[in-house]
């Protein structure tokens, strides 16, 4: 099964990457974009999706500074 893990900076922790992107958008003429946060996307094939939370807690995510969301059964990339 193809699964997707979305990793986000934890709420309340300063996210300078998100701030930098938020400042860059108006510079390009886009207005009205706020609360920008930059995270990480991990996609993987897994035989046992029940192991995903443990994979996140032990390696894919640092739970002290990041939150994560697991999305199961996502479509496989064309060409992979």
């Amino acid at each position: 099964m193809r699964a997707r893990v979305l990793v986000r900076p934890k709420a309340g922790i300063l996210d300078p990457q998100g701030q930098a992107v938020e400042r860059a958008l108006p510079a390009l003429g886009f207005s009205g974009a706020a609360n920008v946060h930059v995270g990480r996307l991990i996609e993987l094939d897994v035989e046992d999706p029940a192991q995903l939370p443990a994979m996140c807690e032990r390696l894919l995510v640092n739970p002290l500074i990041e939150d994560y969301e697991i999305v199961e059964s996502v479509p496989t990339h064309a060409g992979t």
Partner: protein
Amino acid sequence: VKFGVVRFPGTCDDVDALDAAKRVAEAEFLWHADPDLHGVDAVVIPGGFSYGDYLRAGAIARFAPVMESVIEFANAGGIVLGICNGFQILCEAGLLPGALLPNTSLKFVFRQVELVVADATTPFTRASPERLSIPVKHTTGRYYSPEPVPVVLRYARGENPNGSQDDIAGVCNEAGNVFGLMPHPEHAVDDLTGSTDGLTIFESIKQHVSGHALV
């Protein structure tokens, strides 16, 4: 007294760390794939980009065979010093509290900083003066912890290069035998580069370890 300096693929400050340790005691390299600590009295995890710092700085190195032994060594009271990437690895390994985040500026910082010793009783600072002048060079050095932690070093007022919480530059574990810091004491051991203050960290460890050996 013998220091062991760990080398991972991507470590780059290992030679300076070995040189610094050799100025006060014996020292040898430890290889990431070898779980044998070769009977060293203190372990140094130097700076660099272990395993390319993929995923998060220090996240992969934490699972190297040598780290299982370092964790055992630390849990048995062994002296462990983590510098920069070594600090990140020790946090990822759970040997130190907290985590290192990207600098507030998002920029690589490389400069000499003034440090204030917040705790001069540790095995890592007992031979240090009250203030140290030591270089920093990092992109991911903003220390963060949701809980209060034992602070050993702070950036002097106005010197914080990365936006770290409470100007924290270095912390130890509750037991006091594991210490991590972002500045690089191994780059401040010779008058040629302007300061020898970094040597006092290695000297402190040597004094601590030989004191224990006398008991």
